């Protein structure tokens, strides 16, 4: 059949992008692992990783290089990929849920909750019982509390509409932001305030081979899979609640399910890496530009794009002022803002 719908062409385009982005992600990953105070050639990086994974290959490198690649940089790069991918797909879901192109994963106030939790841990030692996970656990509990609060407020009228969700998220976000500020103020510790600020700006510095990385991998993988499978339903929801209903989807129930998945995902990511901005806002738009609007295609493409961008941003954060490390949130915001401006220009161009 002649492709009068233009579907075949788009499928080929998507397949091409998926292949290109997967290759790009691997390349960026190897490059990022090799970059740092001690530069390690990509070929060596690849051989070290292959050796660690399969035990094959001859050891031709200095043992410290192996430690740097495997124990220090690889978990950091992996966490970067997971956080980037997770924020991007959660952004996609939220933009569909509230039908707003400016929605991002932090819209629901989840990061403010995590920040309050982190501030409590850093300044007052809350969650010390969790040992090495004290900071992450406390941040996650904060995120959980924020999501629960948003959910309860948004549900006040019995059903969760997009506008109620937006308002509840903004209100909870501001309240918890104030809580964080108050905690900093009450602690009276300049050093503590500085630590909290660094955490707020995001960092992948906590990455190591631990349970947190595993949890992030499972959550990001699961979220991406769920959102891809739910692609058609997301398409319908993004058009409108009534449309979704006529297409056999209960919009309120579906939005509630999305809310649970997204809250959990964002909560875990923010606990692991602080609130890294702009990735979840900008990447969905980039993905749509590449492969069109259907979520079956947007979700995986956004995941790959987000992963690449965050790893690249982390490299910049590490090398720009080396040996000092710039908080990654500063880099993503600096890179993301021009994208956002472009987007605004395009929006106006579209309606003119």
């Amino acid at each position: 059949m002649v492709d009068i719908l233009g579907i075949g062409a788009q499928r080929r385009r998507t397949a091409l992008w998926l292949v290109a982005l997967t290759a790009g992600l691997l390349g960026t990953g190897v490059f990022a692992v090799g970059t740092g105070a001690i530069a390690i050639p990509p070929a060596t990086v690849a051989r070290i990783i292959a050796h660690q994974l399969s035990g094959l290959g001859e050891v031709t490198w200095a043992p410290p290089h192996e430690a740097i690649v495997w124990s220090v940089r690889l978990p950091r790069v992996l966490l970067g990929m997971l956080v980037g991918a997770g924020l991007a797909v959660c952004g996609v879901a939220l933009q569909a849920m509230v039908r707003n192109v400016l929605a991002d994963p932090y819209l629901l106030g989840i990061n403010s909750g995590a920040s309050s939790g982190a501030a409590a841990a850093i300044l007052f030692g809350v969650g010390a019982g969790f040992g090495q996970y004290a900071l992450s656990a406390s941040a996650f509990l904060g995120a959980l509390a924020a999501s629960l609060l948003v959910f309860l407020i948004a549900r006040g009228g019995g059903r969760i509409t997009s506008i109620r969700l937006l308002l509840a998220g903004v209100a909870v976000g501001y309240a918890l932001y104030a809580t964080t500020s108050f905690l900093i103020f009450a602690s009276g510790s300049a050093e503590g305030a500085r630590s909290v600020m660094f955490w707020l700006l995001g960092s992948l510095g906590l990455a190591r081979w631990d349970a947190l990385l595993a949890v992030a991998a499972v959550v990001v993988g699961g979220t991406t899979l769920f959102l891809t499978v739910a692609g058609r339903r997301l398409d319908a929801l993004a058009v409108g609640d009534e449309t979704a209903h006529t297409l056999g989807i209960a919009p309120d129930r579906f939005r509630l399910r999305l809310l649970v998945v997204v809250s959990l995902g964002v909560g875990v990511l923010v606990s692991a890496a602080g609130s890294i901005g702009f990735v979840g806002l900008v990447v969905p738009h980039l993905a749509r530009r590449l492969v069109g609007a259907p979520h079956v295609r947007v979700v995986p493409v956004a995941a790959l794009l987000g992963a690449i961008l965050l790893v690249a941003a982390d490299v910049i954060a590490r090398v720009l002022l080396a040996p000092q490390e710039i908080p990654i949130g500063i880099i993503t915001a600096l890179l993301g803002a021009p994208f956002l401006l472009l987007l605004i220009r395009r929006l106006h161009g579209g309606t003119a």
Partner: protein
Amino acid sequence: MIQASGVSWRYGAHPVIDGVGVTALPGRVLGLIGPNGSGKTTLLRLLHGALRSPSGQVTVDGRPLPSLSPREAALRMAVVVQENGGETALTVAEMVLLGRGPHLSAFQRLGSADHEIAAHCLARVGAAHLGPRPFSGLSGGERQRVLIARALAQQATHLLLDEPTNHLDIRYQHEVLGLVRGLGTCSVVVLHDLNLAARYCDDLVLLGDGGVVAAGPVGEVLDPLLLEPVYGIGIKRLEVDGFLHLLFHPRQEATT
């Protein structure tokens, strides 16, 4: 067949629909007519379950609507609503393919059969050439035709349309309603234009002031004696070439 009995709906304290019953018979086109605010759209929403009536019940082919899962309901009733999703970035083809959703399980992909159905449905509304275009770039009339194509692609046993002739020029008003009539499926159409109702509906329900003023075959309901008090306008009924036509004129009433 869709049957509603004793259904109601109120916005705030104001009842729009109060204890209304309607029956849409198999193979016939039922028109819902009435002035602005008489509850035509609300009644249609009650029929397809976007609103749940606190009283009475709605059955589709004898099964109570609440007992059907959303997907089962979508396989029985395709609906063209007035919400048109103008902000979406989907293409026209993708918009129509959404109509195939109820036929697929969550893990199933759209297949070539779905694509053929979508292309065929677009062709039926004269929009085959629009396939790859972005939906948001279409005119109001083109959008309306695409949404009707989506409802057709849903291949449901009932078709419900909320003012489908909105935004359409005169030719497409007739083509779209002619198409609906030609389908032979049980259809319910909210219509403003009484002459279109006269030509393309089999049965009519005239709504006014919260309830049904008249219901029955077109010839009986389109009676100036019934219509004039409901619409508040003078009406003259003609029959030309075997078709009913209504002419309207302002009522000569004292304004004091």
